[in-house]
């Protein structure tokens, strides 16, 4: 090891330290932004060091550097424009796309290193094993993340998609990928075999994510995020770059822990999700539960009814759900809350860990609408507050406040829920009686103290706000 290499190694360690400190600071809302900036600083250090190191040790050609510059500019412009203009409701899809391109980049680096090394006769196993693993994992995450993004965006049906023989084809793809990979390791360097690994892995990634239900997609995105970390670490082994190994392993491990915590918050096991979802096991339940739009036991409310109820209340808890996110009604709900607060009503938000499209997403949406962090209550605090709450205003949420979760034997049993039914009265804004993702009916809606206001979340909230204004000023 030359002095130069030593210095590069030390600078990489400094960058790695910044990544770790940054990730650590991201655990608390108050320091999270600083954490992300520190991590970005580490990235700048790693990139600059690598440019200097690669230019001095390998040299390279002008064409190579020119192509890189053009490629990086294109990618950077795409990434920054997307990141700055994306609607907050579409964040999960975008994260998934950024994850896909990361996996794709790792696979491309492995290919490039393979092509560059094949000139020098046979590859040693220390290089070819990580190359094959990188292509394998990178392609799976590339295809899988794109499908997950499509599901979150609604381009691809959120329903679990399967076709006869899908499982067999999936196993076959996995076998071909692994088989070709092993063959590539022990034979002479062969680009065709690596291409077979690539294609089989893409097919596997595709088939792995297609049968997963849309509501589980966030967990898959997180899992694939961890995979990309590992793919990047493998790329680090292939080109002997410690920055890639450290950062990749860090993300691989952190992403795995995050995935487990997310799955726990949703009361799902990662294994069950990967093996093909809610939908397959109780698809019959979904079919049986949905058509019955029985409105006989339901008390329907108008915007005026809801306005009066809210204006008279002392304590109001808003339960925002997927419907609110889908209708992009975060500004409307914040406006209603602000109006009520100025009228002397105590308003808080009860946020279920999986409200929105992925864990923590609802907090981001409400933060976008300038809702103060202290007004958002997490599950335990919210459930304590429901006992003393006059009106629980449920907006586009369903399964997260289904009291049936407390009794065993149904699709939501055991899921942590918000005790909206403990409030003195409940108002539900919902478009129809259609069941939620779990596909079962919700007894909260037929509870005598519950009133239903059938409306799109955005329009319904605006109407209520107008009604409250008239009521308060009149």
């Amino acid at each position: 090891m030359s002095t130069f290499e030593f210095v590069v190694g030390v600078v990489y360690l400094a960058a790695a330290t910044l990544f770790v400190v940054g990730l650590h600071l991201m655990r608390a809302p108050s320091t999270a932004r600083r954490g992300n900036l520190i991590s970005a600083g580490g990235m700048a250090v790693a990139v600059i060091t690598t440019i200097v190191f690669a230019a001095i040790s390998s040299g390279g050609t002008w064409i190579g550097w020119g192509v890189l510059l053009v490629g990086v500019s294109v990618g950077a412009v795409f990434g920054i424009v997307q990141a700055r203009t994306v609607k907050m409701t579409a964040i999960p899809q975008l994260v998934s796309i950024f994850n896909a391109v990361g996996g794709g980049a790792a696979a491309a680096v492995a290919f490039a290193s393979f092509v560059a090394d094949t000139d020098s006769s046979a590859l040693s196993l220390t290089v070819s094993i990580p190359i094959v693993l990188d292509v394998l994992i990178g392609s799976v995450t590339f295809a899988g993340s794109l499908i997950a993004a499509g599901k979150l965006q609604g381009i691809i049906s959120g329903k679990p998609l399967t076709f006869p023989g899908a499982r067999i084809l999936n196993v076959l793809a996995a076998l071909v990928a692994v088989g070709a990979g092993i063959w590539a390791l022990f034979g002479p360097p062969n680009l065709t075999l690596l291409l077979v690994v690539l294609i089989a892995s893409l097919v596997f990634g595709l088939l792995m994510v297609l049968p997963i239900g849309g509501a589980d997609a966030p967990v898959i995105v997180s899992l694939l995020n961890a995979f990309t970390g590992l793919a990047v670490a493998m790329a680090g082994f292939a080109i002997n770059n410690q920055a890639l190994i450290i950062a990749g392993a860090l993300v691989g491990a952190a992403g795995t822990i995050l995935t487990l915590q997310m799955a726990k918050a949703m009361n799902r096991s990662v294994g069950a999700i990967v093996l093909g979802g809610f939908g397959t096991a109780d698809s019959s339940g979904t079919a049986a539960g949905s058509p019955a739009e029985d409105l006989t036991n339901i008390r329907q409310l108008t915007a005026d009814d809801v306005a009066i109820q809210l204006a008279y209340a002392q304590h109001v808890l808003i339960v925002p759900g997927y419907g609110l996110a889908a209708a992009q009604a975060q500004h409307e709900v914040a406006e209603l809350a602000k109006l009520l607060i100025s009228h002397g009503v105590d308003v808080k938000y009860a946020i279920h860990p999986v409200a929105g499209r992925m864990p923590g997403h609802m907090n981001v949406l409400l933060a976008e609408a300038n809702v103060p962090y202290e007004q958002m209550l997490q599950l335990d605090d919210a459930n304590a507050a429901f006992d003393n709450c006059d009106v629980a205003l449920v907006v586009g949420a369903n399964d997260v406040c289904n009291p049936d979760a407390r009794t065993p034997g149904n699709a939501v049993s055991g899921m942590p829920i918000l005790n909206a039914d403990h409030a003195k009265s409940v108002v539900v804004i919902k478009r129809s009686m259609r069941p939620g993702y779990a596909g079962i009916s919700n007894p909260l809606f037929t509870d005598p103290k519950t009133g239903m206001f059938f409306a799109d979340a955005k329009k319904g909230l605006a109407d209520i706000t107008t009604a409250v204004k008239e009521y308060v000023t009149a």
Partner: protein
Amino acid sequence: MIEQLFSNLAIFVLSLLVGVEVISKIPSTLHTPMMSGANAIHGVVIAGAIVTAALADSPTGYVLTFIAGVLAAANVFGGYVVTDRMLQMFSKPNATPVNTDTKDPS
């Protein structure tokens, strides 16, 4: 060669352990930004694209360099910017009605 592999393996395993330790209990509020932040960190693969560029000396190599460059840059730049945009919304603890920011068209 084998020494190098060993030291790289040691770095890999220890980094895995650090990764597990550094993310202990995260409030579910931060799951989305955290995922996005970790996503940005694996954008370090852009360093791999740089090494690739320096090694490339054939048309195939150039094409792969280009692909790796585009994809990795989208990952790293987009990842950090979108995470920052999300967290920026968290870090105004007492959002007063005065600064209702309209700068964001979305």
